[in-house]
């Protein structure tokens, strides 16, 4: 068991934290954090400007960032470390006016047993005017049990005028089933940028659903999803961008399929204002032959070339 800086978690969590939250076992987390392990709190610390408190009506926490807080990072990783856990948590983020912070989330599910293990995090973001958030989230599944490893994050964003949210989400692999549901409502001049990368292999399934409502004047969304489906895995990408005002919307889905992988992309653009400028791009295909040849001409084997291309694609 680790016991560093008010934290107490098992070695599996310790290993997963290194991957999903760049956790340093020596230095620990700096600033505010809340570590969730198997539906319990394994460590928590607030800072002068960021307060973390337990909800009283349901499992979860409220993270409150004071107005004008600048340059702080809050860590809220969650880990499931054994079979037969169905973890459900509600986390609400209240970002004060003019604040500029980084939130590092991330989830790891480890399953060595026969029953399923699941983490379902329901996150709501309330961004006050002129606030700015960079949100980083990595997901990973580990363990050799026959039970499934599931992660089903739900993210709801409510963004007031001139606020900015950047979401950088990665599914690294090993997650048998995931459904990621993200929605956002944007006020005047609010901007949301989403970068999603998903790798699936074997019989894994990953579904991403986005629904962005551009309600405010000059609001904007830039959504880019890159995915690789190998083995017999399946991925689905559903996005809907509603342009309800003068706004800009861009969504792109790029997917590489290999082996018997399958990808289903269904983008939707809904314009309800003549000044809504909405664009969607989608491309699904195997790795281009000339890309492999180029890297082989540098001395890589075909297999090394494919790995390097995928690594770059998902970087």
């Amino acid at each position, binding site marked *: 068991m680790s016991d560093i800086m008010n934290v107490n978690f098992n070695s599996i969590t310790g290993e997963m934290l290194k991957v999903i939250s760049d956790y340093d076992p020596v230095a620990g987390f700096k600033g505010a954090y809340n570590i969730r392990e198997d539906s319990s709190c394994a460590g928590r610390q607030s800072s002068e400007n960021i307060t973390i408190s337990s909800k009283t009506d349901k499992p979860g926490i409220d993270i409150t960032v004071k107005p004008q807080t600048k340059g702080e990072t809050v860590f809220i990783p969650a880990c499931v470390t054994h079979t037969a856990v169905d973890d459900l948590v509600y986390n609400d983020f209240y970002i004060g006016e003019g604040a500029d912070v980084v939130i590092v989330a991330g989830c790891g599910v480890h399953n060595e047993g026969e029953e399923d293990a699941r983490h379902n995090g329901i996150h709501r973001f309330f961004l006050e005017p002129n606030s700015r958030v960079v949100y980083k989230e990595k997901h990973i599944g580990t363990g050799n049990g026959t039970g499934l490893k599931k992660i089903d994050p739900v993210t709801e964003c409510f963004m007031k005028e001139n606020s900015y949210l950047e979401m950088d989400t990665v599914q690294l692999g090993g997650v048998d089933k995931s459904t990621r549901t993200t929605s956002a409502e944007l006020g005047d001049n609010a901007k949301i940028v989403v970068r999603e990368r998903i790798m699936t292999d074997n019989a894994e399934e990953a579904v991403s659903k986005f629904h962005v409502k551009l309600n405010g004047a000059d609001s904007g969304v830039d959504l880019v999803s890159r995915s690789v489906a190998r083995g017999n895995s399946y991925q689905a990408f559903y996005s809907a961008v509603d342009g309800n005002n003068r706004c800009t919307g861009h969504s792109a889905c790029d997917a590489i399929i290999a082996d018997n992988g399958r990808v289903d992309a269904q983008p939707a653009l809904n314009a309800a204002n003549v000044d809504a400028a909405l664009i969607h791009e989608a491309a699904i295909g195997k790795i281009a032959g*000339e890309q492999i040849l180029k890297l082989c*001409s540098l001395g890589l084997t075909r297999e090394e070339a494919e790995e390097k291309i995928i690594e770059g694609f998902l970087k």
Partner: protein
Amino acid sequence: MLEIKDLHWSLPDGSSIINGVSFKTRGKLTVITGPNGGGKTTLAKLISGVEQPTSGAILLDGEDITALDITERAKKGVAYAFQQPVRFKGLTVRDLIELASGNSLNTGELCELLGKVGLCAEEYIDREMNTSLSGGEAKRIEIATVLARRAKLSVFDEPEAGIDLWSFSRLVQTFEEIRSKSDGSLVVISHQERILSIADDIIVVADGKIRISGTKDEVLPKLLSGEYTCSCPKRTGDCL
């Protein structure tokens, strides 16, 4: 030294594209020229291992590399600059050049390499090798990946295509530097007189065959004076 012996290559439908090409490089810089569609790019692909010959042999410093695939030939010291640069989503200029060199490179080393093709490294090293780069920029980075390999034999397929005059001048200078300072040799496919004029040997390929070859002093005057005309049935005098 590169030696090609009676090389043949045909399309799946049997059409002959390379028809009995044989030559041996003697100097450090050999330029292959000839009319469009004459088989020059196919010959470059056969040398680099992108394509396998139907018959014939390819020897590098006396070793038969005909049966080796593109990776094995690269490890033997063959480098190839594609005529059309390849784009990658996610891989940066630094990624590609470091893969080519086999080492991590600092900014100064990257700058030196990219400078040889007229690019300023600071502006490019972290850019993705994707469609955000112009054709000329991508082409120059493609050439830089080959320079980074410091290979025994570097094959360039129309390096001048798509790049501006200033970058071209820098590239010619780079070829001259390689010829004078490096141990490696160059095979360059080109139509450019400035590249032909720095060659040790010139080979003219048309209709899948070598039509004329020799030292620069032997061949270039014939090409420039119009003394040599292409023997292709549908072409006359358009070999350059």
